[in-house]
């Protein structure tokens, strides 16, 4: 169509982030007239994935125009011409697909179930997430006494310890003495059925998870780190509550082995969530949905107030086009706060970091993602020893080239911490350096390219203001490193309102094509 002006729709969805895309997918067989727009020239919103060039353009835009969810992007390309260590150099821009918000999908998750029941899993390639590693700083003389700025140039050789995934890992772990094994196992047995043992943790709900571990299970402090790691909590240990931690650990452990031996979570190739968003939107397009990128709800900062009339909601788009729709969906930015602001970075490294990707089990697919956790206090920033247990942890998701995100021989480090500002970025850099120096590989891995940015939950594809039950907003994307089931709940709620009672089962479809391979 040439213009959208004066067109009428049943559903208008603003933004192609994960939630909106899943909604589009859910509505793809409903026969409704759907217009799906995004002010960006790309799919995915805050979950988008970029080539190098696209990343550079995006960085410019963020720094100049101030995009709602992101701030202070900076890119650095180290000059490696004099360096002898690296024979690998940065490849062409299109060889990379860098995800802004990489997330793990647990196999026991509503998202994966929905991808399967809606059949779109057929258009996605999944790779397994393998071992989880906890970083432990090496103990040298620098631990005691003051750290002067001249000492901080020495690299502490830290170690990476694998997180046990269950009984057999605990059995084989020679770093655990018998008491530690028993304590861990007792906790693992509990977590398997923790919902039924409320009396054990009721009183600890709002209390810190470490206190629960110590007091109820006598888990020594040295073993708290691997258990906390499994929660992927952005907060320091003392601020991670028991009621936050337990369901997340339970989900992790219950997921292991549920679709294949040895692993409990997956990621999709070629950009993670952005790929899922695209596949979902494609499914909606096949069902008749109309897609327009680079079309915002308005060009001015505060979107035009939508006018609600009896025949539907009238909305003004960019280029002064006016459309009418029965339902208007977007991101709800009314509750946007400047906090929390996370620091994130993406680093392209000239090595496969193969050591992190040890095989997970016999007959299991080779892993393409590894999780490295830097517990609170395991990294010390230059000149400052005051970090201790108040500084948040750092998480690095390591993606191998099998994710399709970078060429062979390279890998990508996605680092994230809830510490904001310049100290946050410094902490991320420390983590990246610590990771690279703790892996024994020659030649030493070199950094080919890196980008850092601040991110908060927020969206540029905001729902215009206006109170109406047909204006439905999604809460902005969280900064969680895993996809939470509540996302599906939100999408379902909106979907239910739109389709009423005749929608059939949520995100459950038959394959469109008549004859498909039966194998999976």
């Amino acid at each position, binding site marked *: 169509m040439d213009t959208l002006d004066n067109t009428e729709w049943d559903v208008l969805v603003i933004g192609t982030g994960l939630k909106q895309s899943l909604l589009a997918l859910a509505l793809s067989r409903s026969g409704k007239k759907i217009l799906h727009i995004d002010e960006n020239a790309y799919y995915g919103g805050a979950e988008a994935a970029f080539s190098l060039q696209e990343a550079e353009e995006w960085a410019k835009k963020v720094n100049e125009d101030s995009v709602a969810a992101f701030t202070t992007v900076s890119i650095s390309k180290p000059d490696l011409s004099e360096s002898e260590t690296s024979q690998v150099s940065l490849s062409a821009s299109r060889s990379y697909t860098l995800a802004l918000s990489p997330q793990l999908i647990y196999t026991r998750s509503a998202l994966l179930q929905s991808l399967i029941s809606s059949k779109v899993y057929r258009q996605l390639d999944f790779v397994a997430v393998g071992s989880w590693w906890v970083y432990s700083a090496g103990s040298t003389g620098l631990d005691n006494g003051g750290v002067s700025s001249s000492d901080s140039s020495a690299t502490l050789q830290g170690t990476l310890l694998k997180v046990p995934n269950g*009984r*057999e890992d*605990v*059995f*084989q772990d020679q770093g655990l003495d*018998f*008491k530690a*094994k*028993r*304590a861990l*196992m*007792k906790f693992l*047995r509990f977590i398997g059925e923790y919902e039924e043992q409320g009396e054990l943790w009721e009183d600890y709900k709002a209390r810190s998870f470490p206190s629960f571990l110590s007091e109820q299970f*006598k888990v020594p402090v040295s073993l708290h780190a691997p258990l906390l790691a499994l929660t992927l909590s952005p907060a320091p240990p003392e601020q991670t509550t028991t009621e936050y931690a337990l369901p997340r650990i339970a989900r992790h452990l219950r997921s292991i082995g549920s679709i294949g031996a040895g692993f409990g979570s997956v990621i999709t190739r070629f950009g993670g969530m952005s790929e899922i968003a695209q596949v979902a939107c494609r499914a909606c397009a096949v069902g008749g949905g109309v897609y327009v990128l680079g079309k915002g709800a308005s060009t001015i900062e505060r979107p035009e107030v939508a006018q609600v009339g009896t025949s539907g909601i009238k909305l003004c788009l960019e280029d002064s086009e006016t459309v009418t729709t029965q339902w208007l969906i977007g991101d709800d930015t009314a509750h946007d706060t400047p906090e929390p602001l996370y620091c994130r970075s993406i680093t392209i490294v000239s090595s496969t970091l193969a050591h992190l990707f040890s095989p997970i*089990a*016999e*007959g299991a697919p080779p892993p393409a993602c590894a999780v490295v956790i830097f517990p609170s206090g395991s990294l010390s920033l230059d000149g400052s020893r005051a970090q201790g247990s108040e500084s948040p942890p750092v998480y690095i998701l390591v993606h191998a080239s099998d994710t399709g995100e970078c060429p062979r021989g390279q890998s990508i480090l996605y680092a994230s911490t809830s510490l904001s500002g310049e100290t946050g970025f410094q902490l991320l850099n420390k983590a990246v350096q610590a990771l690279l120096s703790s892996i024994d590989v020659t030649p030493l891995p070199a950094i080919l390219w890196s980008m850092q940015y601040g991110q908060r939950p927020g969206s540029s594809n905001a729902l215009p203001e206006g109170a109406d039950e047909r204006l439905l907003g999604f809460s902005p994307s969280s900064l969680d490193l895993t996809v939470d089931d509540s996302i599906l709940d939100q999408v379902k709620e909106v979907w239910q309102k739109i389709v009423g009672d005749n929608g059939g089962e949520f995100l459950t479809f038959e394959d469109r094509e008549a004859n498909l391979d039966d194998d999976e």
Partner: protein
Amino acid sequence: MASHGVLRGLGAGVRSEEARQKELQQIAAYNDLVELVNTKVAERQYTIEVLDLITKLLNENPEYYTIWNHRRRALRYLFAAPDPKDSSPGPSKRHAQDLVESDLRLTFLLLRKFPKCYWIWNHRNWILRIAESFVQTAEARKLWSEELQLIGKMLHADSRNFHAWSYRRFVVAQLERLQAPATSEPPSREARQSLTESEFEYTTKMIKTNLSNFSAWHNRSELIPRLLAEREAGSVARRKMLDDELALICTAINTDPFDQSIWYYHQYLMSTLSLDCPPQDRIVHDLSNHDRQKYYAHEMEYIREILEDEEDCKWVYEALLHCAGCYLEVEGGTQAFTTRDMRYWLDQLKRLDPLRKGRWDDLGRSLKL
């Protein structure tokens, strides 16, 4: 349905009336087939057509063992009969081989659907022996080593299938039989290529994958005496084997004292220490009573430590009482525990497992508590 605490699949759901009618039709068809097959067999009509009918029936119900017997009778008849496509009279080896191959395929497919049916395993066993009789040694070895691979795959799919483990031992035995050169002299040590070492490694691998594997532990216990004999292990090597196994099981017990299969293996190791253990089953041949006492005392010591963290594990108390009994039989005077301790453990057993009260009372009597 749970087996030793491990859940297996979902149970049957509620059927609709439509489904029920369909099932009644299927039952009627099945009964007709059974009658037809039995009639043909009674008339001794062992033709290819009847064989096909038997195949159809077995696909529906492989547990009907009599039909497997009929199948073997039919096959024997067909082996001896001339090939219908052949012009020459007399039994056709080619024809027989074709039949064997198709039965191998049949049993393979059935085993995938019914991996725990004794009769399928049994028939496959029978077929392989027949197959072996058709070929030379090298071919025969290939036959059995492919079989070993098949078993490996089945155990990978379900590592706790005891049928598969039992069959594995059988296949390994066949391979070893075939690897001995056919000379009149006893084979030299170099010539004998036994699979015991690799099979032992295999049990280690399976245990590391899943500690709760009764069959893997059991297989390990079967292999150890053979392993020691083949290695021609002397006193020192034997002690080391015993100590290593005890250390392994100690780590396993400390990891998961609630798992029964681990204790099962512990009991096996304790049994090898006992005075009553037959010589061929012993791991160490030169145990003195003092040695025994030390072993029992050590076991009891670390098992007792588990009580610090787990008060409600019945296996711990049972093991302590058992070891205590063994200890008392060889007691040299020093005592690592008291009668009061033993009474306490017995009381805990009665508390934790009241359904077996009679057994615990009996145990108490035998220990004179």
